[in-house]
Every structure is written in structure tokens, then in C-alpha cells.
């Protein structure tokens, strides 16, 4: 897709005015990752209650795609059922962002937040839920993203 299509008003708006930016004190999940290729950094905090995402925030630095993607992802999962969030796929994220046909380098920017989310869920499932089967699935999915 052309850059005029990528850098639509809405992406720039989420880049410049990210929703759910910040940290949660004592979160249930705190997960950080960085993209070794470009140096983008992302940290995501989650609170999970009654099998729902009770709260989610993120901080980070990086390109418009990675930051808008992270912010939109937090909006997407806020209040959602935990089981649904576990199922989120690469396609869901790109759909939500309205971004298609990104090249192999830039698609990583769009998926960094999902990678961080899945890695966070892995830790949560392992440590708090003792559910190794689901946890391993999350880990595989996270590392399969790129």
C-alpha cells in the first residue's frame, strides 16, 4: 500500500495522541519488548479481573505504525473477554489498523504490540494460572509473529 494510504489522518492522530498511554501501578501483567532491527520499544501493562481485561496501558517509542498499532490494540482489548483476547491474530490487528500489504520490515512494526501482548499472556498463564498448555501456545504464537 502507498504511504498516503498508510499515514492516514487516523494513524497520525493515534501516533500523536495515543489513547491508553501510560502505566498501571501494580499491574497483573507487565511486559516489555523491543524490535532488534529498528530499536522500537514497547511496554504493556494489563489488569485482568473476572476473566476480562479490566485495564490496559502502554508506553513506548517508535514509528507511527508501531505506536498507533499499540494504542489501537489497547482500545480493542479493553473490557474484552480474556479468551477472546488470547485468540487475537495477526490478521485481526492489521484489519483493526486498516493496514494491508505492508512490506516484511514494516509489518513487524505493526505487530510488535501483539507480540508484547502474547508474551505478557504467556507469563500470566504460566505464573498466575499455571496453565502451561495455553501458555506454550501463546509463546509459540508470539515467536511466530516474526
Amino acid at each position, binding site marked *: 500500500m502507498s504511504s498516503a494510504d498508510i499515514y492516514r489522518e487516523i494513524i497520525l492522530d493515534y501516533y500523536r495522541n495515543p489513547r491508553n498511554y501510560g502505566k498501571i501501578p501494580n499491574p497483573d501483567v507487565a511486559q516489555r519488548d*523491543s524490535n*532488534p*532491527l*529498528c*530499536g522500537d520499544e514497547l511496554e504493556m501493562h494489563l489488569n485482568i479481573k473476572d476473566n476480562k481485561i479490566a485495564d490496559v496501558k502502554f508506553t513506548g517509542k517508535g514509528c507511527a505504525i508501531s505506536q498507533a498499532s499499540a494504542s489501537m490494540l489497547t482500545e480493542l482489548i479493553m473490557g474484552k473477554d480474556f479468551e477472546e483476547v488470547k485468540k487475537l491474530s495477526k490478521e485481526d490487528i492489521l484489519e483493526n489498523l486498516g493496514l494491508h500489504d505492508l*512490506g*516484511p*520490515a*514494516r509489518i513487524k512494526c505493526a505487530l510488535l504490540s501483539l507480540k508484547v501482548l502474547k508474551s505478557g499472556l504467556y507469563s500470566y498463564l504460566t505464573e498466575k494460572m499455571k496453565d502451561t498448555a495455553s501458555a506454550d501456545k501463546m509463546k509459540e504464537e508470539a*515467536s511466530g509473529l516474526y
Partner: protein
Amino acid sequence: MQASVINIEKIRKDFPILERKVHKDKPLVYLDNAATTQKPVQVIEAISNYYLNYNSNIHRAVHELAEEATAAYELTRDKVAKFINAPRREEIVFVRGTTEAINLVAYTWGRQNVGKDDIIVTTEYEHHSNIVPWQLLAKEKGARIEYVGVDDGGQLMLEQLDRYLETGRVKLVTFSQMSNVLGTISDSEEIVRRCKARGVRVLVDGAQSVPHMKVDLQRLGCDFFAFSAHKMLGPTGVGVLWARRDLLEGMVPFNGGGDMIREVHKYETTWNDLPYKFEAGTPNIADVIGFGAAIDYLEAIGMDRVREHEVEITRYALEKLSEIKGMKIYGPMDAGKRGGVISFNLGDIHPHDLATIIDEDGVAIRSGHHCAQVLMERLDVSATSRASFYIYNTKDEVDVLVRALNRARELFRI
């Protein structure tokens, strides 16, 4: 040209160097394939094409050239994984060659896991690259290096392996899947089985096996595996280390630098994901891409047919060479159970003199210790001559070799 399981006339057309004359007018008979093979135009063009059309550094840029170059480089990783049936693409680490692959293991896993009085077991028919790194490691750690002996038929004496394993102090067993001097094909699966039964790690040097026969890592079951592109139609400067993911994850990095890091800070640094953690600096991009074309070429022929052709030509060569007066051949004599590498000596002609003489007839063989001085000591010779075959060699070429050897014999009055 004789009928063969492969279409040898068609294949030879892909190797323009085989049309070349040496010493003015002698057609080249290239029988030094165990040292390095020739390259088909498909490989040469893959490299030129990269430089002519999409040369760029990889992994870190977003422009179009970089994306094309990155995709092509990473595609070879997939091809390699499939070629040797490795479980995962991220277990394929690109290095310069077999030598660097083995040193990488010695510097990382070796230094982490081998301690004082531990034993590293290798064999008497190893290439120097599978001996010297372990000597260096053993010296640093106060560990010992021991050798599985070679019997008079050129086979490893596995009962010696058992004796070392029984000590309970062996940390690594490392051996070549095919000897580059004797042509012996090691009983790899059996060796791995014995080691695994004792929880001992195994490194297999596939430098001579991968080019010449189907290798299936999942069947083999070893922990580390190494080979070189240049011995299998690929360019110089590329090789592969394969290791099981859990081992690679536990290993400290080898070289430090670009691409292998996640975050660098002044006083601490974290590592990139596999396999990049072990690929520091700008890799040999063009040649990795060329290596992909070499694998395509071999896959198109089929490794079973490559092997069949070599068995046929090796059988013929063993027969013809045996008829020469004063000939001594080292290694197994059953072509069906050995590789296409034949080492020999002719009377008291020193291999260097022999190679010089037959070079005049256009025949390129290797002479010397073949980077296997420990084996030379075992065979009680200072050197051997070695003829080694590949997909483009013919029985006619074996005949040229035999005629040239007879001329040498006459010159030396044997």
C-alpha cells in the same frame, strides 16, 4: 560417455570450467572435488544477479532493495532447513564454513560445558577443523581429548568409543559423517544412539556427507551439525551450523556486533532472537543467496541419484586403479558403502610428485595430508594422493586418470 543415472551431458553444460584446457591443450579432468567443487552457471548467475539488481545490506533497512535482499537471504535459510530436514529454520546459522561452525561450538557451548578432566572424543580420521578447536578448548579448560581409532579396513573402532563413554566423563563426541581421506561413511546413527544412551552431546561434521548423500537431521538425532557450501556447488565463504534450538538458546554468543543484539547499552547488552544472535556483522549476503541456487540445483537432480552416480563411478575407479602395478588404496573397497573419495599411493612416488606429473595431463587431484595429519600418522604415511568425484565426472575421466598414473609410473621406473 556412458549411460548414467543422471543426465551427465546436460549437467556438464552447466559447468563452463569443464570446457577449459590446462597446460595449453589438455582438457581439464577435475578430480579434486573433496577440496571444493565446481559451480554451475545457475549459482554464478544468482550471485551476479544479486549484485546487478538488488544488492543491499539486510535486516535493518526498509527500502525496496533491502527488502528484496533480506527475503532472498532468508529464503536460503528455508532451503537449507528443508535440504537437511532440520526441525526449525531458526536453527540454521550461516557461518563461513565447516571450520567456523565447529569453532563457534567450541567457543560457546564448549567453554560453557567442558571443564577440567572432562573428555572430548573425536576420531583418528577427522579433518584438522574437527581436532584443533577441541585441542584449544581442552588446553584452556584442562580437559582431555581422546581419539576413536581407525581399523585397517578404514572403519571406526566403536568399542573404543564405548570405553570412553563408560568413564562417565565424556562431554562431547564429535566425528565426520564421511572421511575426507578414506571415503568411509561413519555409522552415524549408531554412534549417536550410543552417545544419547549416556546423555552425551554429539557434533557431526557433514562437510563431506551433505554434498554427496541424503542427510536427514531428524533421523540422525545429533546435537550439532556443520557443513560448507563450497563443497556442494555453492560459493566459497558460506557454511552452516545447525544446532538444536534449546542448545542455541542456552549458548552465549560467539562474535559480538551488529545484528546479533537486541539492545546495546554502555554497560550491558541483550541478544537478538535465533539465529541472528550468532550472525554478528554484515553476513556474506551474496554467497548465501548463491548457496540457495546450489541447493536448488542438487534438489533438481535428487540426492539419491547424486549418490547412485557416485557409487557407480567410484566402483569403476576402484576397479581400474587396483589394476595398476604398485598401487596401494586406503579405505573401504566396497563402493556401495563408501563415498567417492579415493586415497592412494603409487610405488615410492611421493604424492606431490605424482600430482605434478599427472597435472601435465590435465588431471587435477589433491596430494598431501588432506588436513588429516593424525590419520596420516595412523596410516604411517607422510601423504597420499586423492581423487574425488562429483556429479559431472565420467568414467572416461577415470580412464584419463589411469593413463596418467601409468605415465608417472614409467617416469619413476616402477
